[in-house]
Each structure stands twice: as C-alpha cells, then as structure tokens.
C-alpha cells in the first residue's frame, strides 16, 4: 500500500492538475470483467463526470478502457470505447439508480489499471468559474456564493427527504391496513372453508345413507 502510494503520488499530483480542483476518486479495474459505480439520483439533477485511466504497472501506451453510463430505465447516456480519458454531462430525466461501468478493452493483457473518476451532481456540478466571470465576482464573495449554493442544496435535500418520508409513511399505513384486514379475512376464509367441508361431507354421507 505504501509502495502504491509512492508510485501513485507523482502521477496523482499530475492528475490533480488535469482534473478540476483536485477531486479524485480511484477505482481499480479488474483484468477481466467490469467495475461499476452506481448512484441513486432523482429527477432533474445535473450530473458531470470526468475519468482518466492510468496503468499501475506503467505500461506504454496506456491500455484503453470502455465506459458506459446507463439510466435506471436502461437508456445509455454515454458510451465510449478505446479511450484513456473522457467526460460526460447530462441532466437526469429519470429518478433511480444510475450505473457507470468501466471495463478494459483487452481483458487479460492490460495489467492493473486504475481509473480516476470525478463525479459531481447537483450544486457541486455548477461551473463556478463561468458564474464568477459573468457576474464579475471573486475571492470572498465567490466563496460566499458557493456557501449559499450549498445551503440551498441542503434545503432541497431536506425537502426531498421529507417527500420520501411521506411516501414511506403511506406505504407503512397501507401495510398496516392490509395486515389488519387480511388477518380478519383469513379467519373468515378458515370458517368458510370448514363450513363448506362440513356441509359437503354431510351431503356425501346422507347420499351414502350413512347418516
């Protein structure tokens, strides 16, 4: 692990220059099969992603990977093959699990691969540089704007959680109702079935002239 850190450190610092603001997420891609990242995103959220591949074994040229982003209903939002660097951006139109998968193009030959993923959603995906340029703000004011954005995101999240809780409460109450009714109904079914049995057997024995 320490060796890996020593190896990755200069590469990482280089990546930090390439990747925005030093955000980095490191995944290990297996030699065969794929590595997937999922997230539950609700409707109408901006999603921005950026990924770079490096080879742990320092192979040249860097082995390429393929990447695919899928929406919860199966629509492919981004699909690229034979690349070492790519990015995608979209606004979610469906609510659910979004799946991002990476797999090596030549399984078994690539060696150990690590992919650096920069994945931002919602307020973090906002392009503050454009806002700063447009409104000509900088420094402390820009930072305070970012904080304001963060607070708004917290508020929105709270409302979302509240909505979810209301939904779940509805399901719970419905389950409660069902448990009560179906238990009583099961008693009713039991009595009905046993009455039907008794009635049928009585008729049967009367027919057989045993009663």
């Amino acid at each position, binding site marked *: 692990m320490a060796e890996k850190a020593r190896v990755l450190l200069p590469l990482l610092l280089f990546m930090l220059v390439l990747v925005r603001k030093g955000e980095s997420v490191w995944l290990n891609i297996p030699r065969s099969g794929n590595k*997937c990242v999922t997230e539950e995103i609700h409707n109408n959220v901006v999603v921005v992603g950026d990924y770079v591949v490096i080879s742990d074994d320092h192979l040249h040229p860097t082995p390429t990977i393929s990447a695919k982003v899928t929406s919860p209903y199966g629509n492919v939002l981004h699909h690229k093959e034979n690349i070492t660097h790519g990015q995608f951006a979209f606004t979610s139109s469906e609510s659910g699990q979004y799946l991002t998968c990476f797999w090596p193009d030549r399984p078994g030959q690539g060696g150990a691969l690590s992919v650096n993923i920069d994945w931002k959603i919602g307020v973090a995906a906002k392009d503050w540089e454009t806002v700063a340029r447009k409104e000509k703000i900088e420094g402390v004011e820009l*930072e305070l704007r970012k904080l304001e954005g963060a607070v708004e995101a917290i508020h929105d999240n*709270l409302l979302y959680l509240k909505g979810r809780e209301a939904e779940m409460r509805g399901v719970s109450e419905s389950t409660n109702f069902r448990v009560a009714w179906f238990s009583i109904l099961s008693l009713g079914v039991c009595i009905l079935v046993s009455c039907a049995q008794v009635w049928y057997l009585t008729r049967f024995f009367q027919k057989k002239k045993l009663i």
Partner: protein
Amino acid sequence: MERGERKMKAYAVLGLLLLSTFAGDVSALSVTVNDVECVYEYVLYEGDTVSGNFVVVDHDIFWSSDHPGIDFIVSSPGGNVVQTMKGTSGEKFEFKAPRSGMYQFCFHNPYSTPETVSFYIHVGHIPNEHDLAKDEHLDPVNVKIAELREALESVTAEQKYLKARDARHRHTNESTHKRVIFYTIGEYILLALASGLQVVYIRRLFSKSVAYNRV
C-alpha cells in the same frame, strides 16, 4: 430498478473523496461488496479531518431479524489501521489524518450474500499557516469561510447518511408490503387446498373400491 441493479453481477466500486482546499461535494455512491471492496482516497494535508458514513442498503434478509453486518477498516498509507468497525450495518466515522497520502477504506463481507453499501467520505481542510508561501499572510476571513464550509459539509454528510438509511428503511417497508399480500393470498390458497385434500381423502375412505362399510 433496484432489483435489476441487484441482479447485476458486476462489482460496483465506489470511491468518493474530494481532496481539495475548496471542498467540493461528493455524491454518496454504492458498492456491492461480495467479499472485500476497497476504496482509495488521497488526503493532501496532514491533520485533515476525514469524516464520512456508510450504510448497508441491500438487506434482503429472510429468516433472522438482524443481519450480522459488515466490517469496515480504514488503513493509512503506512499500512496502519486507523479505524475498525466490526459487524455494523451503518455507521458514521471521523478521524484526523495522521499523515498525508493514499488512505484505504475497505469493506469486508463475512458472508456469502453480496451486500450493497452506500457511503460518503469527505476530507476537510482548514487553511493554516503551513499551507502558504513565505510572503503570504493568512486572511482570517478565509479561515472562517473554510470553517463554515466544513460545518455545511457536516450537515450535508448527515443528510446523505439519513438518505441512505431512509433508502434501506424504504427497502424493508416495500418488502414487507409485498410479503403481506403474497403470503396471505398464498395462505388462503393453501388452506383451501388442504381442506379440499381432506375432503377428497375422506371420500376415498368411503369409496366403493375399499371394502364397503369397513370404516
């Protein structure tokens, strides 16, 4: 949707960590832990506070009322274990990074059923004297803004934890809802079937093929 994702055999690995003096926001990603899944995060400065949480979301238990949970181990770049949590189904954690470097966050699943873990990790940094070049001065406003940002981050982290717990609760709720219906209808059908079989059996006891009046 969740069932489809569960059916996927692919490893879902999630790494989250933003390293940045401008601590951006990281989404709470989900990983499917089959045996061991490790996430790596780079901590830029020594003394940074690394905080986060994780929740085991996919909890398809059938018999027992509580799953034994998964193990969570944080290792520093030197190989030392910084934090360990055993047998938990969701926890918050926080520690001060003793050194900078690549930290490893591992989830161990002691059982054969794959579990989906949703987690969020945040590395927070407050600028101090050591970060600056020799001729720069530390503006107290920047320090205060950084502290504010960290406070807001902790609120966001708590929200993500709540969201993950809510997702798990929702999962259990929906499962209960479905089970109530299916098991009750199944129970009715089985009851009717059992009594039908009883009647058939009694009829056969009195049938002509068996010696008449022997019963």
